[in-house]
């Protein structure tokens, strides 16, 4: 067991994948000599050479379109977008092809590739470096949208993502990259894609979050405990396909729920969670479900970002309202 932060954990998963499978290649801007702007690919160029860890010219469309080509050819590309805000230059490839090749060819072509990218706010970066646009990908059939929240699950989920026969959009919460360390086992681990986790049990209210919002959500759960409210906390881990059952079982037990995410509220992941709660568990509900999310505005430039991001206070307040309803 070793203590590591999320950057090191992701680096470990990439290292394992490159070592175990000759078809795995990494590609992206500044991932080689510079070892990635967040250093996620540290040491990998030296170990695996520039045929496997590929610095590319500055063109997201070519990176993703090219990765699709490699995947068609039977390889397993793991492409890095420097920031999720720049993945839109590749969105035509994602929507037109990445999500469709399997269906189009009736399963003949399977695009087992991963599109990794840091997402989310909280690091005082300029515009286009702070968005949370997971909903675009979750809305697109054929994609798997995965968002880890801790070093250990990041390493395990990335391993699963690289092994998956279907494309994975892998959002890395950049605010968590170096925020804390966690014990990560020496042996490679996987975690099932499409499964959520109950990370804290409770009986009064279910808090549902993922990615960078897990930290304020767990902090809110602690605050609630001080006030005698026992919160159950679910980490979605995979945003799409969504694990309805884990959510339904919990909400049917607690009768109350709050959904938390950073991205804008309208048509966000929270809307989908609430719809599923209504579809599966309406008659168990003791109160309307609440959402604590980013507002329906563009992510503010960083001078104003702290007041924009959902925090433990907002989450706890919403939970109290739901409990007192």
């Amino acid at each position, binding site marked *: 067991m070793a203590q590591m932060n999320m950057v090191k954990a992701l680096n470990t998963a990439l290292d394992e994948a490159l070592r175990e499978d000759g078809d795995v290649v990494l590609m992206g801007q500044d991932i080689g000599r510079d070892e990635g702007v967040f250093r996620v690919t540290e040491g990998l160029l030296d170990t695996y050479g520039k045929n496997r860890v590929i610095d590319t010219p*500055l*063109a997201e469309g070519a990176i993703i379109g090219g990765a699709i080509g490699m995947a068609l050819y039977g390889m397993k590309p793991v492409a890095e977008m420097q920031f999720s805000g720049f993945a839109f*230059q590749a969105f035509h490839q994602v929507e037109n092809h990445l999500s469709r090749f399997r269906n189009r060819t009736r399963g003949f072509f399977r695009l087992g590739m991963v599109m990794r990218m840091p997402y989310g706010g909280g690091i005082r970066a300029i515009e286009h470096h702070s968005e949370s646009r997971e909903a675009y990908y979750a809305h697109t059939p054929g994609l798997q949208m995965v968002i880890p929240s801790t070093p250990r699950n990041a390493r395990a989920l990335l391993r699963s993502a690289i092994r998956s026969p279907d494309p994975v959009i892998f959002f890395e919460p950049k605010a968590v990259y170096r925020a804390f360390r966690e014990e990560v086992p020496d042996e490679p681990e996987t975690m099932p894609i499409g499964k959520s986790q109950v990370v804290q049990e409770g009986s009064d209210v279910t808090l549902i979050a993922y990615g960078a919002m897990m930290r304020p959500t767990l902090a809110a759960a602690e605050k609630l405990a001080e006030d005698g409210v026992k919160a159950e906390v679910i980490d979605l881990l995979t945003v799409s396909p969504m694990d309805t059952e884990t959510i339904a079982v919990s909400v049917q037990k607690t009768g109350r729920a709050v959904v938390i995410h950073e991205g804008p509220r309208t048509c966000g992941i929270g809307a989908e969670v609430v719809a599923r709660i209504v579809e599966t568990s309406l008659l168990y509900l003791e109160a309307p479900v609440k959402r604590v999310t980013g*507002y329906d*505005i563009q992510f503010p430039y960083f*001078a104003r970002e702290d*007041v924009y991001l959902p925090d433990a206070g*907002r989450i706890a307040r919403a939970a109290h309202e739901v409990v007192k309803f």
Partner: protein
Amino acid sequence: MSRKNIRLKEKVERLVILDKTGKANEALDPKLDDELSLYLYKLMVQSRVLDERMINLQRTGKMGTYAPCRGQEATACGATPAMDKDDWIAPAYREVGSFIHRGWPMESLIFFWGGYEEGCVPAKGSNHLPFAVPIATQCLHAMGISWGMKVKGESDAVLCYIGDGGTSEGDFHEALNFAGVYKLPLVMFVVNNHWAISIPREMQTASPTIAQKAVAYGFDGIQVDGNDILGCYAAVNEAANKARSGGGPTLIEAVTYRMMFHTTADDPKKYRSEDEVKKWEKLDPITRYEKYLTTRGTLSRNVQEDVKAEAVKLVAEAVERYELHREVDPVECFDFTYEEMPPELAEQREDFIRVLDEAGVKRGPRGHYLLP
């Protein structure tokens, strides 16, 4: 049946007016009058002083990550002044001198890099777009503005800045292609500073020059020494005149060097040699132009000192205004999403205010909330 070379009418040239020692080629010297010559000098000095100050503001925690332009001053300070007042400018993010020339208050740049949308509000009548962070996206906007000029029958032109890295993006090529097809009044100005973060120019394109890409789109390309402000000025001036008189677009490649880190968050030691940087230090565009102006008799030691002192003063005043107006109301982040606020968003805004109140966020004298 035959096989022979295809002759192309488009040409690709290289232009240098000031050599490394600051000596001008007599025949090519645009012989700008003293006032304009000195103005270009002032602009470069102001750009440098502001640039240095912004690095310092970042280091002392008063600003965020910053992408400096040291060593590249001759590009923006030569190119933008070569355009007419009614022409439009589309920058990337390193064109400090361009913003200053078009009348943006210096503090706008500090506000932008300090994390405030307020830094993107254009100076009135400046015909100058704000910073474009997603690489190369501005190329299509510049093309579109020039398209509009053509459609409306105006004889104006557009200057677009883009980096060497940016020339790999599809948007750059699509902009050039449309500009060629519609013969648009567009001057595409590539600031080839040799690096795109850690990726060297040779890894962006296999073409020996960026200028030659123009040929494929059906117009002329020209490579200029990007540390030669007269070269930059003359090339843009000529391209703009051609554009305004219906001659279509030009691609200009200005060869310069990024003397500093990519941004304050970057460590260039990881990917480039100190020797390379030292080599370029000797080619500094300001020193070179100083030599030229001095030989010409336009610049004395005294004037040089005055220019520096004025730049320092202007920058200090801008920083002061920045410090003074940093207290912006966070609630405003709701107010510019739509012309009319939808009811649901108005409710979110109310909720936001409630959160601020409950969190005990203090209010300033104008009744606005104070950021932490």
